[in-house]
């Protein structure tokens, strides 16, 4: 269909009458939606605006009459489901408000739905916010006529460690199965059996032959052995209109009237999904997806939903700690701690022998926090050694980001991704690293061609029906270059609106960003950089990278420095190019850094010698929510607020500002305020005391002038020599649910994570003698032993392991970045 008839179709309206009210709606609208538009409420369970109509629950029955071929109004013989019937010209609809037949039909349906419902509302988690409970009162009979024995099931059936199914309460509306199939693509639950014994159950190899009562065995597809291993399974709990699906984490925890709901933004990935934080007495009890049609629509990942316990674990710090003369950390007052921190930083930055200080903010901070870190480093410490990229990073990446991403405002959006006719993913796993990005891509399944430059086709890629361009890590540059005129990918990307998505992992692949830019130019496709962590884009915009000032201004540009120096009211900014995070850590480990200011950095995530760096640096200031590894070496620990206890802004990958207010009011301060206080002790006024102050300054700085940005990178694409043998290329990325620091304290969520495996192609596996059982992946630093999975279609000479899953802490155990050579050997070393 071309654009013109589509446009014409969009304005086609149909007029009909609902309960005597005239209404004009777009053609193809469902009766239930048309009724919503004129404020007529029709009870429903299976209907969900984001899911295809099912007509499964029959609760929305209404009387319908429509004009026949002769033009006379002809009534349908029986009430019709308004959620599954589209409107037609001249239709007359009578809902339960005006039609006795519709009202009787609805009451009858409700009575039937409640026949096998246990009515255990006092025990049920949904009690108080349950559509069935509410509509049984509004549209049901006041008393039950049912006197027989109800059907009972064993309760609850654990679909995964997190999702529990209580089949007695289920009314078979199929919202969960439709979500799993249509939206997430993880069709691990489905209807089973017929008639009165119909139930939702887990899919398994014996499904057709199951014992007639309950499913047996486990899902065949998944290594974790979990029947409902989906990264989006929590959404089924939220859309369940009864209490059939509940989450283990929230089970029996509270009632809706207990909870204070505050809107928030998820801190787990760069999508910036809107969430609702439900808390009671200062403690978060659950988080739900909030509707934001331009970002996450109705859905969030399980990580966004369930991983919030980390901020209230027993190692939370609420008072500053200062290392005393006895070598131990002691609680101190804020003035004492700030004075101690300032004294240490002064000693490191002033005097002839001073080695200078460096700042590592970490990748999870808000825009305002990142701005404060950047400004603190440059104004208070007089250095450009500040880098939020505590991950694989390169100068090429920095030039790419400065030239094309920072300060460009909104680029490619979620909507653009959805509408793109072709999408090329490189260094980016939509399901693992993108969260709801994956759901947007999957929404266009069948209308969109997806290509992925990756070592193998993940389950996520398969669900997107993506074409794999098998590539060993490091070879992405060459892979981009190989997308030439004749290839399918090049042809597809030429279509208007196509998008090339580059992930942060391309920083470990020399020439990849250069070639991605070249490919974008060649095909006319737009480029989107989707990092993994929530703070990455904000840090970039706020100038928390060594060579980039706020807005992507190049430190090397004198006019850029001048602009920023004037805005900050200082004479000049440091000129010396800063070191990136890896260099800072390496130099600190060599004893060449006088002081470190460390934000939310987890040493075990880093391949560099972070432990040694912290130990050998004379003075370490840590700004942390929890007392972690950094605190063990820190001289001063300043407590900061977790996202739910502060206001701020995350900048998501689109460049969209995702501001959020304080959900829970405590006296914890955000990083920006703590840095402001610390700078005051150093005799500098950062003016970042409030979120508004920081935002005002960022807004005043605005976009960089011409010539203030760094030049686009020009790096030759590296060639990777990936061949089956003893020495192969390491590929790795974070799975969505793993042992990241922000997922601590949530065992139910951890249980839904995928088990760590090592993936090899058949040839590679054979060459390494590791076709089954356990494989040992080793570097000069250490080794990992993981079950081997021989993966079809995988690039040869590559071994893939998850970055931080249980038993596979790559950075800590192997100490190398993806793209490095490791040895692979069958069996235990």
């Amino acid at each position, binding site marked *: 269909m071309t654009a013109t008839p589509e446009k014409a179709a969009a304005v086609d309206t149909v007029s009909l009458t609902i309960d005597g009210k005239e209404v004009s709606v777009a053609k193809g609208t469902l009766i239930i939606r048309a009724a919503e538009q004129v404020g007529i409420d029709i009870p429903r369970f299976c209907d969900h605006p984001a899911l295809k109509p099912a007509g499964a629950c029959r609760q929305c029955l209404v009387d319908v009459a429509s004009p026949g071929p002769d033009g006379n109004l002809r009534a349908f013989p029986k009430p019709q489901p308004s959620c599954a019937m589209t409107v037609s010209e001249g239709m007359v609809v009578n809902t339960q408000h005006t039609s006795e037949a519709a009202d009787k039909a609805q009451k009858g349906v409700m009575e039937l739905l409640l026949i096998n419902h246990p009515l255990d509302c006092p025990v049920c988690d949904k009690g108080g916010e349950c559509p069935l409970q509410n509509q049984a009162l509004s549209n049901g009979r006041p008393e039950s006529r049912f006197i027989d024995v109800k059907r009972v099931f064993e309760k609850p059936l654990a679909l995964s460690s997190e999702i529990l199914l209580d089949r007695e309460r289920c009314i078979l509306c199929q919202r969960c199965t439709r979500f799993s199939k249509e939206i997430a693509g993880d069709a691990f639950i489905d209807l089973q059996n017929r008639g009165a014994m119909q139930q939702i159950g887990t899919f398994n190899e014996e499904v057709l032959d199951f014992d007639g009562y309950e499913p047996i065995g486990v899902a065949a597809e998944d290594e974790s052995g979990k029947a409902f291993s989906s990264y989006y399974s929590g959404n089924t709990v939220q859309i369940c209109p009864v209490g059939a699906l509940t989450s283990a984490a929230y089970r*029996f925890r509270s*009632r809706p*009237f207990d909870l204070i709901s505050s809107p928030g933004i998820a801190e787990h990935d760069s999508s910036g999904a809107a969430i609702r934080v439900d808390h009671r007495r200062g403690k978060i009890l659950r988080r739900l997806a909030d509707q934001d049609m331009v970002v996450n629509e109705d859905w969030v990942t399980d990580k966004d939903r369930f991983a919030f316990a980390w901020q209230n674990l027993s190692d939370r710090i609420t008072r500053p700690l200062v290392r005393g003369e006895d070598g131990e950390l002691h609680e101190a007052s804020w003035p004492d701690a700030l004075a101690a921190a300032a004294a240490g930083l002064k000693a490191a930055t002033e005097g002839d022998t001073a080695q200078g200080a460096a700042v590592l903010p970490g990748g999870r901070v808000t825009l305002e926090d990142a701005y404060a870190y950047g400004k603190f480093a440059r104004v208070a410490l007089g250095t450009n050694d500040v880098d939020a990229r505590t991950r694989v990073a390169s100068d090429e990446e920095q030039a790419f980001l400065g030239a094309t991403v920072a300060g460009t405002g909104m680029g490619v959006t979620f909507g653009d991704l959805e509408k793109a006719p072709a999408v090329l993913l490189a260094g980016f796993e939509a399901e693992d690293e993108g969260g709801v990005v994956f759901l947007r891509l999957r929404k266009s399944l069948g209308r969109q061609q997806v290509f992925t430059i990756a070592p193998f086709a993940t389950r996520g890629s398969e669900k997107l029906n993506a074409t794999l361009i098998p590539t060993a890590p490091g070879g992405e540059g060459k892979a981009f270059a190989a997308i030439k005129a004749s290839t399918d990918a090049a042809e597809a990307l030429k279509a208007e609106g196509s998008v090339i998505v580059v992930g942060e992992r391309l920083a470990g692949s020399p020439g990849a960003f250069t070639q991605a830019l070249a490919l974008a130019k060649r095909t006319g496709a737009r480029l989107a950089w989707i990092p993994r962590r929530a703070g990455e884009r904000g840090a970039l915009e706020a100038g928390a990278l060594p060579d980039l000032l706020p807005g992507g201004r190049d430190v090397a540009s004198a006019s850029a420095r001048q602009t920023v120096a004037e805005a900050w009211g200082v004479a000049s900014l440091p000129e010396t190019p800063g070191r990136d995070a890896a260099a800072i850590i390496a130099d600190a480990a060599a004893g060449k850094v006088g002081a470190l200011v460390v934000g939310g950095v987890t040493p075990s995530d880093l391949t560099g010698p972070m432990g040694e760096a912290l130990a050998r640096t004379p003075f370490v200031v840590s700004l942390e929510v929890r007392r972690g590894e950094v605190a063990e070496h820190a001289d001063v620990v300043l407590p900061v607020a977790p996202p739910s206890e502060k206001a701020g802004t995350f900048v998501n990958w689109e460049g969209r500002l995702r501001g959020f207010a304080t959900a829970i009011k405590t006296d914890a301060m955000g990083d920006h305020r703590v840095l402001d206080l610390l700078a005051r002790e150093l005799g500098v006024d950062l003016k970042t005391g409030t979120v508004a102050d920081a935002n005002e300054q960022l807004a005043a700085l605005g976009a960089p002038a011409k010539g203030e940005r760094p030049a686009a990178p020009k790096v030759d694409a590296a060639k990777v020599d990936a061949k089956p043998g003893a020495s192969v290329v390491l590929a790795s990325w974070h799975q969505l649910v793993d042992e990241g620091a922000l997922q601590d304290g949530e065992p139910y969520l951890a249980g839904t994570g995928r088990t760590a495996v090592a993936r090899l192609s058949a040839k590679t596996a054979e060459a390494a003698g590791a076709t089954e059982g356990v494989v040992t992946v080793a570097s000069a630093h250490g080794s990992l032993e993981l079950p081997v999975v021989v993966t079809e279609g995988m690039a040869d000479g590559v071994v893939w392991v998850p970055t931080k899953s249980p038993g596979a802490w790559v950075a800590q155990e192997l100490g190398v970045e993806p793209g490095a050579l490791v040895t692979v050997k069958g069996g235990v070393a």
Partner: protein
Amino acid sequence: MTESDDVWKVNRERDGKSEPFVSNLPQAGPVGKIFAPVAGFGVTLRNFFKPTVTEQYPEKKVAPMPRYHGRHQLNRYADGLEKCIGCELCAWACPADAIYVEADSNTPDAQYSPGERYGRVYQINYLRCIFCGLCIEACPTRALTMTNEYELAGPTREGLIYEKQDLLAPMGEAMLAAPHPMVPGTVDDDYYRGDVLKVVEEQKEWVRENRPEDPTLPENRAAHQENPEHRKGAYVNQDANVRNHQTSMQHASGNLGSGI
């Protein structure tokens, strides 16, 4: 002239038009009018000849009416399992926001009430409670009822927030202290219908295995009755003034909203 001036004027005009106040009570006759100034003494005189109603509290305590709304009690089933399922309907019904409940899952190792759910935290703040009894009406399992105890005063605010152990009914003669498994072969519905009437041997066996020192085991009961010092937990609450304030103070520290 402002709007309020207008209003004032209109009001005064209306005053001018209004009729003088006339009572619609029956008017006293001529004799009544003569005795009116001393009629009030009649009430006093009449009461000289009535029996006295003054109660000599606290020297002499008089039992209130059987349905008097006194301190709450969390009841138990005949086998000692708690009736409360932590549904929070009492807290929901409470017009004074005096009740705070947190539920939790029963586990095979710790079954406090029949079924899946039990009340882990149960607090009633008697500084807020207005003894209206709506919580009692809301309770789906008859776990919460009211006793006749009315001596609810204390020197501290924390002490007047009663915790679950303060509210639980005393253990009956044949009861076995929770947690312990349900009667084998029963489901929660059997308890709700009142079909569970006594502790069975399997439950005693389970407690013997897991808490051999439990004072409610038949073999330990005699020893504990001789030595009342062992009495704690289920036996407190005989007198509000000697209640163990310390326990509620511990919990009150984590209790920001419901009270004070």
